[in-house]
């Protein structure tokens, strides 16, 4: 920084520097750049928290080669929505492994956030959340996917998720009998 800068200009520089410190720039696999609140990124993603703490954040865009721009936009959107909200007790305690922690019900805005996604976008977002170690976002996305399964027959689930039945008729019957105890009436 030059010492002979005008006061206004110096103020501007300071503001820019301050803004830089508050956000992190992330780069998707297809080269798009996204700004995310540093505080929220560190709070919501163990991977980003590690990169920020370890100084491996690139001001010109930290490469996240595994994440496409649509998924990264959703990740960043999710973080930034959290940035302005006071962390609830549920979020603070979410540092426990998501494999063992009791599930926290998604909040209303989180439900809406995932409800508007296409199935492809939801798939990419759950993978991105997993890659970035975002346990709360994993909670929310896995909850949404589980809602898409509940109360449906295997055929209906296949239809929802566009999956082909790769069992033979005999195998299907065998497994059905194995699991007969789980069905009320089949």
């Amino acid at each position: 920084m030059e010492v002979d800068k005008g006061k206004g200009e110096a103020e501007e520089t300071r503001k820019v520097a301050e803004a830089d410190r508050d956000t992190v720039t992330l780069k998707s696999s297809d080269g798009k750049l996204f700004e995310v609140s540093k505080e929220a990124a560190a709070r919501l993603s163990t991977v980003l928290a590690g990169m920020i703490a370890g100084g491996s954040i690139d001001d010109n865009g930290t490469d996240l080669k595994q994440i496409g721009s649509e998924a990264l936009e959703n990740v960043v959107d999710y973080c930034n929505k959290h940035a302005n909200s006071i962390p609830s007790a549920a979020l603070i305690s979410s540092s426990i492994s998501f494999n063992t922690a009791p599930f926290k019900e998604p909040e209303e805005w989180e439900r809406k956030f995932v409800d508007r996604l296409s199935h492809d976008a939801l798939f990419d977002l759950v993978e991105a959340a997993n890659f970035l170690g975002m346990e709360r976002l994993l909670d929310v996305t896995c909850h949404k996917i589980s809602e898409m399964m509940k109360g449906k027959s295997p055929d209906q689930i296949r239809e929802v998720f566009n999956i082909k039945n790769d069992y033979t008729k005999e195998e299907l019957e065998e497994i059905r009998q194995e699991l007969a105890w789980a069905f009320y009436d089949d």
Partner: protein
Amino acid sequence: MAATLDGWKCLPTVLLRSVIRRVPCEADRASVALVCRSWRAAFATPPGEAPLLLPPQLPWLLRPLPGGPA
């Protein structure tokens, strides 16, 4: 994107298990196992984890009726 290449059939097992744990009803879980081979494979219990299709999640009397609400 992954979703359009492989589809939900190839959702990583760790994520699928995480999803299934949020499905409380045994009949629903059994339906998930019947979807395809790779989804059934997610029901194999890794060491240190609770099985997905054994613990009674709901009392018998609370099981869903066929054709009733989910």
